[in-house]
Every structure is written in structure tokens, then in C-alpha cells.
């Protein structure tokens, strides 16, 4: 494999890893606060549809992004109402909202545009246009690092850089702020947080809304960055891969970056079977690459490579003592 092809694959690794990374960080906030969320998929889909539709109607990707976040946060709040206020089963609520999102996105897109449940193709300002980082052209002559900077690091849409900045930001919020400490505590032992006079309900709602916001970014990137418009079931299981990455990362932000880059790399490889054949000399079936993130996650879950211990209060509704 020569350097140019490697750069191409790394470039698509980043593109494919970004929605996973955003959704993974989204899940991190919710699960760290003790609310399981298997509805990442549905929220991303909702955001993708809202972004695709509003960006197509207004011609502005930023208005679309806001609509996407709104759609995703709406679903996050429903999940919050079901699992925090009414203390329902968080897993079932997630499954249900994925169903609703899968159907309702197509219904709305079809009634708005009559294009078989898709939104019209986006172009120009209705998409996230590539940003050329400073000196990318000037440095592209530098051997090895120059093309890497120009082709892999530079030239992505704004959300890609936001996603990568969200990793240190999440680390900082989680480990260096009062909110982060309380968030982690409420996912481990809500009763102690309650005893300290802090509202468990408010903290968990805050976490769930942040989850909705980040899923909104992930979905908006799907519809207006990775692709140009919304299509039925376009997230194609990414919400579940993000969930797998979250477990793989053991609910920690920097590891989430590593895990989603790894899973993004598998997805990038799956698009280039020719490269695999030329590099290792035999064909790896594409389904095997598709299944690899899930298999790795099961291995991690089984505790063969370190133990993945979820937040202790995860999935348990908190009942305040009276």
C-alpha cells in the first residue's frame, strides 16, 4: 500500500469516525449519569432528517443544524420523561424511540418533499463545506507530514473539528468541573448526591439534554457533511456502533476517541476491499469487517481484555426516600 492510498483511507477514517465519536460522547454523558441510552440511533436519525429538511428549505446548513439539534433534543427529553420522571424501563424506552424515529423521519420527509422519504440533495451553503486549515497548501510540499496535514487533517467540515474538540472538552467537564463530579457521582450512587442536597432529577435531565445535543451534531453531520441529504435509515446502525465504542472505551472520553477512530478505520477499510487484497494478499469478506466492532466489543464485555464496568446505578430509576 503506498502513501497516497494510506492517506485516502485515513481521510475517510476521520469522516466515518466523526458521527461515531459524537454519538459515543453523547452516550457517555447519559450513561455516566445513570441513564442507559440505546436510542442514540433514533436521535441521530431524527437530527439527520431535521437537518436535511430545514437545510434544503432555508439553504443554510447552520439553520439546519439548529433544527437537527432541536429534533434530537426532543427525543432525548421524551427519553428523560419516560426514564427519569416516570421511572420507566430505560432500555425499552430506547428501543421504542428508535422505532418511532425510524418511521416518523420517513413520514415527515415524504410529506414535506414527496421524494420517496428522502430530503432533496443539498449543495453549496446547505452543506458543511470543507475548511482549509492555515498553511495547508504551503506545507503540502514537506515530505510525509505535509501531505498528511493537507489531506487528512485539513479540509473537513466544521463539525469534524468540533467533534475532536469535544473530546478534551468532555474530559475537562467530567473530571475538572463540579458538574462533572456530580454527574459521575449520580451515575454511581444517586442517593449520596441526593443526601448532599443536589437534585438527582435535574442532573440527569441535564445529562440527557447534552446527549440529545451531541446526537444532534452527529445526525446533522450525517445529513449535511458525510452525505448530501437525508435518506431512509441512513444512520445504518451507527448509533449501536457508537454504543459498542462507548463500552469498548469503558465510558471514558479519550478512549472513546481511540475506539471510534478504530471503528471508523474498519468502516473505511470495508469501502476499499481492493486495498486489503493488495496489502495482505487475500480477501477479507466485507461482512467480517462490518461485524468486527461488535465482535471486539463482546470480547471486551466478556472481560478478556480488562473489565468493562458500567456506571453502577445505570438503568436503575432513582426513587427518593420519603
Amino acid at each position, binding site marked *: 500500500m503506498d502513501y497516497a492510498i494510506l492517506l485516502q483511507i485515513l481521510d475517510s477514517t476521520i469522516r466515518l469516525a466523526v458521527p461515531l465519536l459524537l454519538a459515543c460522547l453523547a452516550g457517555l454523558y447519559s450513561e455516566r449519569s445513570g441513564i442507559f441510552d*440505546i436510542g442514540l440511533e433514533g436521535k441521530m436519525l431524527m437530527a439527520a432528517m431535521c437537518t436535511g429538511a430545514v437545510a434544503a428549505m432555508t439553504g443554510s446548513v447552520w439553520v439546519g443544524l439548529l433544527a437537527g439539534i432541536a429534533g434530537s433534543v426532543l427525543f432525548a427529553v*421524551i427519553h428523560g*420523561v*419516560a*426514564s427519569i420522571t*416516570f*421511572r*420507566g*424501563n*430505560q*432500555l*425499552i*424506552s430506547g*428501543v*421504542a*424511540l*428508535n*422505532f*418511532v*424515529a*425510524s*418511521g*416518523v423521519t*420517513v*413520514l*415527515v420527509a*415524504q*410529506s414535506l418533499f414527496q421524494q420517496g*422519504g428522502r430530503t432533496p440533495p443539498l449543495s453549496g451553503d446547505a452543506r458543511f463545506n470543507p475548511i482549509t486549515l492555515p498553511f495547508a497548501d504551503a506545507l503540502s510540499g514537506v515530505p510525509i507530514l505535509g501531505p498528511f496535514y493537507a489531506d487528512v487533517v485539513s479540509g473537513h467540515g466544521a463539525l469534524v473539528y468540533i467533534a475532536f474538540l469535544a473530546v478534551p472538552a468532555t474530559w475537562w467537564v467530567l473530571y475538572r468541573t463540579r458538574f462533572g463530579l456530580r454527574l459521575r457521582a449520580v451515575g454511581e450512587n444517586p442517593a449520596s448526591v441526593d443526601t448532599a442536597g443536589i437534585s438527582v432529577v435535574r442532573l440527569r435531565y441535564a445529562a440527557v439534554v447534552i446527549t440529545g445535543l451531541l446526537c444532534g451534531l452527529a445526525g446533522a453531520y450525517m445529513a449535511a457533511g458525510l452525505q448530501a441529504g437525508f435518506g*431512509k435509515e441512513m444512520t445504518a*446502525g451507527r448509533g*449501536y456502533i457508537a*454504543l*459498542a465504542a462507548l*463500552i469498548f472505551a469503558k465510558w471514558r472520553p479519550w478512549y472513546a476517541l481511540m475506539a471510534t477512530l478504530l471503528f471508523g478505520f474498519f468502516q473505511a477499510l470495508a469501502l476499499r476491499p481492493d486495498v486489503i487484497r493488495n496489502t495482505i494478499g487475500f480477501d477479507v*469478506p466485507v*461482512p*467480517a469487517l*462490518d*461485524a468486527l466492532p*461488535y*465482535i471486539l*466489543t*463482546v470480547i471486551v*464485555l*466478556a*472481560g478478556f481484555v480488562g473489565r*468493562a464496568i*458500567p456506571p453502577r446505578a445505570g438503568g436503575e430509576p432513582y426513587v427518593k426516600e420519603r
Partner: protein
Amino acid sequence: MTRLPRWADLVLVPFISLALAGIISAIVILAIGQSPWEALRTMVTGSVGSAYAWGYTLYYATSFMFTGLAVTVAFHGSLFNIGGEGQAQLGGLGVALVCLALPWPHWTLALPVAMVAGAIFGAAWAAVPAYLQARRGSHIVITTIMFNYIGAALIIYLLVNVLKPAGQMDPATARFPAGTALPTLSDLPLLSLIFDKKVPANVTLFVALIACWLVWLILWRTRLGYEIRAFGKSEPAAIYAGISPFKVTMIAMLISGALAGLMSINNVMGESGRLLQNSSEGAGFIGIAVALMGRNHPIGVFLAAILFGMLYQGGAEIGLWTSIPIELRTVVQGLVILFTGALDQMVRMILGIFFRPRRMEAA
């Protein structure tokens, strides 16, 4: 919160949940500029308006009974099996391998062997998550989700690279021999008087009914069922009573996987006559809704499966005859799951208001 009387909990709560899901669905239909009344009419006539329509409704209901029972058995052991989808597809692989292995002379010979194969393959796909839960404490919800995707990838690989006959374009196995074709309700004596047109509902329906009865028998009339339920109610109490958590987890999940795998005699053997990609078509997930709606009792599962059969078939009719997309049925299913499974406390709180005064008078 007021405790509801038993009848209200068993009958009123599901009914009101369903009504709420219906109201929200109607609002969705209105919001996209269509008529909910028209949708309801199309749905009802298309699913229960004629013997022909019933033939489709019962066909879907048969699949949902199996997956609903699968979720039920696991639920009683406090295990949430979201892996019905993968287990049903793997069961389909078992059924396909049996059907293709021999030139079966008659369906009565092929059916028992196919059932055993479907059940074993389904159970095998549930066995790994069950083992990881029982021995390593890996959360079964996550592992079964992962196994759905691993299973789907495995089936695609096998269909494209191994099982697809030479010269065929679409990823599917060869057609099964004619001797494996299960008689449909319109082929059976007496029933053919009712079902005068060819319908997909087939003899698997009777297998599903027997399965409902067997699940009831196992859960409420055997020592094993008692152990599963005791373990599901309270793990420490069950361990104190000498019940092995490992054994209960494994057996409950194996039965659950086997039931999900058995579903494929309905769709793979009875209807399509070959194994296709994504053969289960979401029935594994609908099983969750069916079990929730049916309050984890075989009779409830039977009734809920028919209801979801109506929704599924009626939804298809809406997609065909109105300008509302077929995806409406996914929304309705999701809403039913949401209200029966996650917002059930809300429904109980609302009902509690109506039951409270009466109780105070009594006191």
C-alpha cells in the same frame, strides 16, 4: 401512588396505553396532512375485513407469537433478550440447511427436523450472550444487540459466498424442494371452506399455539419454571433457595433463543421457501412489544401477537392503498412499545387518580 386492582392492572393499563399510542399516531397522521379515519378504516378492512385479510394477519401473528414467547421466557428470569432478531435469522439458517440437505418426500417428515434445527440454531445464537451474562457478568442487553449485528453479517456472508447457487444474482439460498412446502390454511380440509384464496398463514400457526401452551406449562407447572420465576423475582432469594443462577440464566436464554429460532419455520419454510437476507424483518423486535403488551403471559402474548399481526398487515395495506407511507406502522409499533413498556407508570398514575377516592370510602 395508589395500587390498582388486579383487573385494572391487567386489562385497563394495556388498553389505555394502546389508546394513547393510537391518539399520538392519529396526531402524527393529521400532522402530515392525512386522514386518521381513512387510515384506521384501511387498516381494519385490510387486516380483519375478510378471510383473505385474516390469512395475512394470522401469518404475521404466528411469527410474533414465537418471538413474543421468546422475550417472555427470558423476562421471567429478569433477562432482557433483545437478540430475537439475530436468533430468528440464525434459526432460519438451520431451517434452510435442513430443507436443502435432503430431497424431502413430504412436509410431515421435513417439519419436525426443520423445527429441531431452527430451535438449535436459535438457541446456539443465544448461548454465547447467556454464558457471558452468567459467568462473566456482561450485560445481556448489549451482548444480544451485538449478536444481532454479528448474526446479520454472518448470514450475508454465507448467502453471498457459500449458499447462493451459481448463476443467481440476489443473495439467497436455492429454493427448497417441493416436499418441504408447508400447507397453508387454504390447503387444509374444512379451513379451506373459510380461506378460499391462497393465504400465507400455514400450519406453523398450530405449532405456535402449542408453543404458547408449552411455555405456560413450563413456566407455571414445572420445577424449572418455578426456578426461572424465582430467580427473576429475586436473585439473592433464589440463590438462598439453592437455585443455580448459572443454570437458570443458561436454560432461560436457550429456551428463549430456541423459540425465536422456531419462528423461521413460519417465514422461511412456510412462506418464502428459501432463506433471504434479513429474513426476520423486525419480528424479533416486535416480540418485545408483544411480550410487554401481553404482560408476559402466553395468553396475553397470543392476543397481543394477533393485535400486532393486524397492525403489521393493516400497515402494509395503508402503504398500498393510501398516500400514507408504510413506515406509519413502525411509528405505531414504537409508540405502543413506548406506552406499554416505558410509560406504564404514567398510565398507572393517571388511573390511580380514578381509583383513589373509592378506596378512601372503603377505609
